[in-house]
């Protein structure tokens, strides 16, 4: 397919998606926001973790930082400033964490990122209990669901644009080399630390902004809501189900799983975690390459048979 055609198709798709708040009812818009939220998070996750194969569970750490920054600053300044400050905080944390931990690999990195999210949650809790003396905050800003949806759509466009640009750049090749063999990467002249930290920070920046944009959805947040580890796991499952070797892969995991989780939460609220766990195991065992990888292999096999 020609790039011009793809660009036109993408533009039409975004334009159609942008009209959703004009005719959707409250429930449909809420579902669309959830879909868009996880699209941004899972695609941002894949920006870094897809090529490098560093599995991160820090998604909610950055998402929560964004949400909390927005909650603290709400009503004190204009919304764009809040987003900028959230972005700066998220980037700063990502750079510090990236520089200090991206030497870890494999399971150590996974556990560290999980611990990071919990650590930040505990610090925020401690601060709220001991310094501000109130746990939990109300967020009153004049931002309605349609605004949230449009901001998320804008973020999604940015994530995809960033992904496409990186994919075609030297940095994109560097990340794929790192994912295959970090030793080789160093010996062909790649500064692996800079490449990894840059992408980790970029990915974290999108997650942080996403959290900030989503904050007004809740009206009330506390650390347990903003830093819920379930978010990190859900993003991970969605990305894996869709397939992480293509930029658009996570989309194919986000849509079915958001709908599935929605159904499970409505019908089996008490068994939700168990069922999510089962879904996770099924996905990892049955389609380790994700839906996109599975379909690509089928197409290739068909091509060879013909």
């Amino acid at each position: 397919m020609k790039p011009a055609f793809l660009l036109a198709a993408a533009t039409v798709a975004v334009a159609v998606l942008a009209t959703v708040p004009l005719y959707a009812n409250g429930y449909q818009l809420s579902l669309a926001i959830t879909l868009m939220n996880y699209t941004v998070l899972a695609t941002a996750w894949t920006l870094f973790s897809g090529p490098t194969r560093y599995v991160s569970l820090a998604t909610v750490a950055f998402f929560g930082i964004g949400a909390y920054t927005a909650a603290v600053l709400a009503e004190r300044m204009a919304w764009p400033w809040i987003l900028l400050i959230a972005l700066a905080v998220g980037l700063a944390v990502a750079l510090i964490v990236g520089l200090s931990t991206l030497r870890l690999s494999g399971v150590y990195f996974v556990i560290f990122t999980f611990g990071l999210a919990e650590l930040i949650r505990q610090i925020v809790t401690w601060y709220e209990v001991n310094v501000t003396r109130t746990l939990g905050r109300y967020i009153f800003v004049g931002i309605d669901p349609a605004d949230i949806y449009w901001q998320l759509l804008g973020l999604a466009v940015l994530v995809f644009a960033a992904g496409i640009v990186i994919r075609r750049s030297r940095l994109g090749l560097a990340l794929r080399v790192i994912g295959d063999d970090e030793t080789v990467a160093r010996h062909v002249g790649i500064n692996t630390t800079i490449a990894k930290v840059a992408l980790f920070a970029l990915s974290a920046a999108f997650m942080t902004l996403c959290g900030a944009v989503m904050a007004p959805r809740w009206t009330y947040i506390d650390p347990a809501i903003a830093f819920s580890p379930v978010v990190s796991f859900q993003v991970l499952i969605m990305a894996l189900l869709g397939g992480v070797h293509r930029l658009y892969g996570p989309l194919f995991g986000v849509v079915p799983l958001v709908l599935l989780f929605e159904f499970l939460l409505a019908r089996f609220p008490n068994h939700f975690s168990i069922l999510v766990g089962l879904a996770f195991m099924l996905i990892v065992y049955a389609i380790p390459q994700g839906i996109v990888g599975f379909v690509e292999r089928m197409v290739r096999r068909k091509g060879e048979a013909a």
Partner: protein
Amino acid sequence: MSAPLLEVAGLTRRFGGLVAVDDISLSLQPGEIMGLLGPNGSGKSTVLNLISGALRPDHGSVRLNGHEIGAAAPHRIARLGVARTFQLVRVLGSLNCRENVLAGLAFGRDALWGHPAQQRADELLARVGLAGRANTATAELTYIDQKRLELARALALDPRLLLLDEWLAGLNPTELQDGIALVRSLRGEGLTILLVEHVMDAIRSLCDRCVVMNAGRKIAEGAPDAVLAEAEVIRAYLGDDDA
């Protein structure tokens, strides 16, 4: 004699109580091929790892064109013009052959990107005998072709010094002759090569000089035939009875 391209002096590296490389000194003239020999575990690969920056020396210096590189990070050393292959062949599995070579072109001394890089990658593939295989997945390559690909990736860095770690090991006799001819042709292009090798045919036909190591120390240095006849070298390989 002109200034050496590579000058290693007093190189030492310990792993716990084991002295893997013990006070090794050697130097290579531009355009020279030197063999680094010795029984298994004598520290040859560690020397290559120290020169390429994979490991840092405890003592001693490594100079490339007079510049100290002993404590530099591997990506810096690669950008200064030191390329290497690995004892256990390491191709990049999720990339095709052309992309494997692009990985060497994109970050090296005179980094190339875009169309010129693609063209150069295809030239390099042809250079090592993989013409027309640019879009082949690495999993479909035979062992020698994987080794060829690894060599093309190393050459993509446009190196001054090439480190080959048993690049000729595991090849059948025909492949070995091809491999030797390929390495020899690289010298014709002015490349300086330090190779760790066990294959004696290759050493005799390729190397100008050899350094023999045993238990981390240098036990002999000189022309291949002379070195291989030395009593201490025979003892290191075969034991006292045969010396």
